């Protein structure tokens, strides 16, 4: 494996894992705050148990999220020093604010986890809310930094020099809002479906019904609402990308030739050598509509972009298909869920619906990862879109492949342990949260 590929793989791996840990750590506190609130309001101990059970998950994911995030803040330099040398002062603003938000989150988490019976109960609840809000703020800020790489702003690039630097303009670049919105909704959808699915599974196993039923409802509500909102945000993002990064959009849809009107293709096998796609379903004019809001608009194909600026088409296209496909599945499940709620059927009696949620456990995260592949691979060969190529940013140190293997091993074993720990937490629910055993 050559060093450049190794560096890219290591970065992708680190981000891929961090995204999952961070999303769970960012979203779960909101679920927790809801059930905590219900406990304080209703005095129903089940809600207290749910809050405590979830808070253990949060502690585990926060720790993994924090260390993998620390890792990333170093990795940017370890792998892409030339990028950081120029980009650091420009897009550093969201990172410095994120540092603050993250710090507050860590402090609030200390209060929350250790504050049971020690703090005023509403202050205690509030610290839980602070964990969620500052976590979400961190997430938005980090995505804003990533958005800058897609949509560089806040500097002039003249003769290879970066001048006239304005970090505030860089932070509020054109892509920050659409990307952050899409990411946050994705985080809530993915985590909501995963959590709801796990509790649905326990309901199917007839374990500790009330506990899992109430947990399921909180998580499913977040998940389904966000899954229904996501297509709107996706549409805004698509129009944005069409305008700003036509190469990325063309790769997403494997559009080799500029067309007017351009069809949307579903599925298909990409042949990168011959620049063709086969075996797809075609929706005439749909891509024109999605990208420009007009069924007859012209959509730029890869033929209008110099060949050495093409992103890897097949990966981007497949990832995009996976993201949209799974997003649609989750949207459908959400519609079914609301339909059943509306018909006042209780969820507990419809086993097939619970099974549907169990099936959906991994879907959100797969879609989320696929979405990141679209953003990151679709931006290639650029690290700063149109300004700096990824290959020019890589570290001069040889032997990165070894580092990649080592960190892969670490991340995989870490994930195995996390899954194992969660499995044990869930398995122990009936023991830990019996009414006689509340102070575990």
């Amino acid at each position: 494996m050559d060093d450049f590929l190794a560096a890219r793989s290591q970065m992708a791996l680190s981000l891929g894992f961090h995204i999952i840990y961070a999303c769970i750590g960012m979203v779960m506190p909101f679920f927790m705050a809801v059930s905590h609130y219900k406990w304080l309001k209703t005095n129903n101990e089940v809600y207290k148990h749910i809050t405590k059970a979830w808070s253990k998950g949060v502690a585990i994911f926060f720790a993994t999220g924090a260390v993998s995030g620390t890792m990333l803040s170093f990795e940017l330099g370890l792998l892409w020093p030339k990028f950081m040398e120029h980009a650091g002062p420009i897009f550093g603003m969201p990172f410095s604010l994120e540092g603050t938000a993250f710090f507050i989150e860590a402090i609030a988490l200390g209060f929350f986890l250790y504050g049971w019976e020690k703090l005023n109960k509403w202050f205690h609840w509030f610290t839980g809310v602070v964990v969620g809000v500052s976590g979400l703020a961190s997430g938005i800020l980090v995505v804003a930094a990533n958005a800058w790489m897609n949509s560089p702003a806040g500097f002039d690039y003249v003769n290879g020099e970066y001048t006239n630097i304005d970090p505030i303009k860089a932070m509020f670049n054109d892509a920050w809002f659409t990307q952050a919105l899409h990411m946050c909704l994705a985080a809530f959808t993915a985590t909501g479906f995963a959590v709801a699915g796990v509790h649905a599974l326990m309901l199917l196993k007839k374990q500790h019904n009330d506990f899992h039923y109430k947990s399921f409802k909180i998580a499913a509500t977040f998940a389904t609402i966000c899954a229904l909102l996501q297509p709107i945000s996706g549409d805004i993002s698509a129009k944005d990308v069409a305008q700003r990064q036509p190469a990325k959009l063309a790769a997403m849809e494997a559009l080799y030739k500029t067309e007017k009107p351009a069809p949307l293709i579903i599925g298909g096998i990409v042949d990168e050598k011959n620049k063709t796609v086969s075996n797809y379903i075609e929706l005439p004019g749909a891509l024109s509509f999605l990208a420009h809001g007009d069924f007859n608009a012209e959509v730029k194909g890869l033929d209008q972009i110099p060949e050495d600026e093409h992103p890897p088409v097949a990966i981007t296209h497949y990832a995009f298909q996976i993201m949209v496909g799974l997003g649609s599945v989750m949207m459908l499940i959400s519609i079914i869920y609301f339909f059943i709620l509306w018909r006042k059927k209780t969820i507990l009696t419809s086993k097939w619906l619970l099974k549907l949620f169990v099936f959906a456990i991994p879907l959100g995260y797969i879609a989320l990862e696929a979405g990141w592949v679209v953003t990151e691979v679709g931006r290639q060969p650029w690290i700063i879109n149109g300004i700096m190529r990824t290959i020019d940013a890589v570290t001069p140190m040889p032997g990165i492949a070894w580092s990649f293997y080592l960190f892969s091993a670490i991340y995989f074993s870490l994930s195995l342990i996390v899954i194992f720990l969660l499995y044990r937490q869930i398995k122990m629910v009936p023991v830990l949260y019996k009414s006689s055993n509340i102070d575990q």
Partner: protein
Amino acid sequence: MEQIVIAFLCLAILLYFLLGGADFGAGIIELFTSTKNRSRTRKTMYHAIGPVWEANHMWLIIAIVILFVAFPRIYTTMSVHLHIPLAVMLIGIIARGTAFVFRHYDAVKDDMQWLYNRIFRYSSFLTALFLGIIAGSVLSGKVDPDATNFADAYIFSWFNWFSISVGLFTTALCGFLAAIYLIGECKTEEDQKRFIKKAKYMNFAAVVFGAMVFFSAAMEDVPLMNWVVYNKVGLMAVILASLSLVLLWYLLLKGRTQILRILAGFQVTMILVAISYAHFPNFIRLKGGGVISLYNTIGPEKTVQSLGWALVLGSFLILPFLGYLFYKFQQKEE
């Protein structure tokens, strides 16, 4: 604004050494605790650092963010030439950070604890060691941007007697800080005695490794003597550190735990002042006499200004909240 950003950088580095260092030290103490006392040590430790655990490590993030936003050349030079020790330190941070949380949140307490404990102890040692090695390498004058072969560019920049001595010295100091901190958290006199003993060992180790730092500095041509003996402030700091040590041992016999912590913190602060004051604002000493200084690598004005504001405003939010956290969980439970 420049000054404010630099002040925050120094503060973040100092607090990471003190608070993060005490955390590493807790693992190091556990490593050097006899098997029969380990579970007690662990309990005291968990009690003491559990609530502030995550917050202590945020100082590293703050320091690193300041470096890459405002001093990108320092950040990238370290990233390139100290890639290997940084990667090792990161592995340590990942391993100990997760093992500490996992061993507490594993719903079933079984043989897995054995694994978490092992990981926690050894990686705490490793992290402190490499943190020190990195600090030593920055000062060592072995970082060589013009190196043409792998070993000179990426290995000998940190693999030298001076860096390794600083690493060992740091490890001992971390253990010392943790032992002093934990004395105040003990519930029984017996435990207290054990930590006093630990503090003594760690102190002794620090003195030995400290001497090694001076020897290796002479061997590797690091002008350490010029910084700490022939510089007024440096000398003053060394004298204060020594005096506070004497006072610390005197008070230890009296059991004044709060003052002990302050003294131990003061002592480590003085050591950092002693080795950094004389060559401030220089940050990295390069091979062949060059330096990378804070002033001549600082980023563009607007960046520094907005970073400065972010830090000032951020600290208004963080510091009171953090102070309350430390205060709230320090009161001993009856």
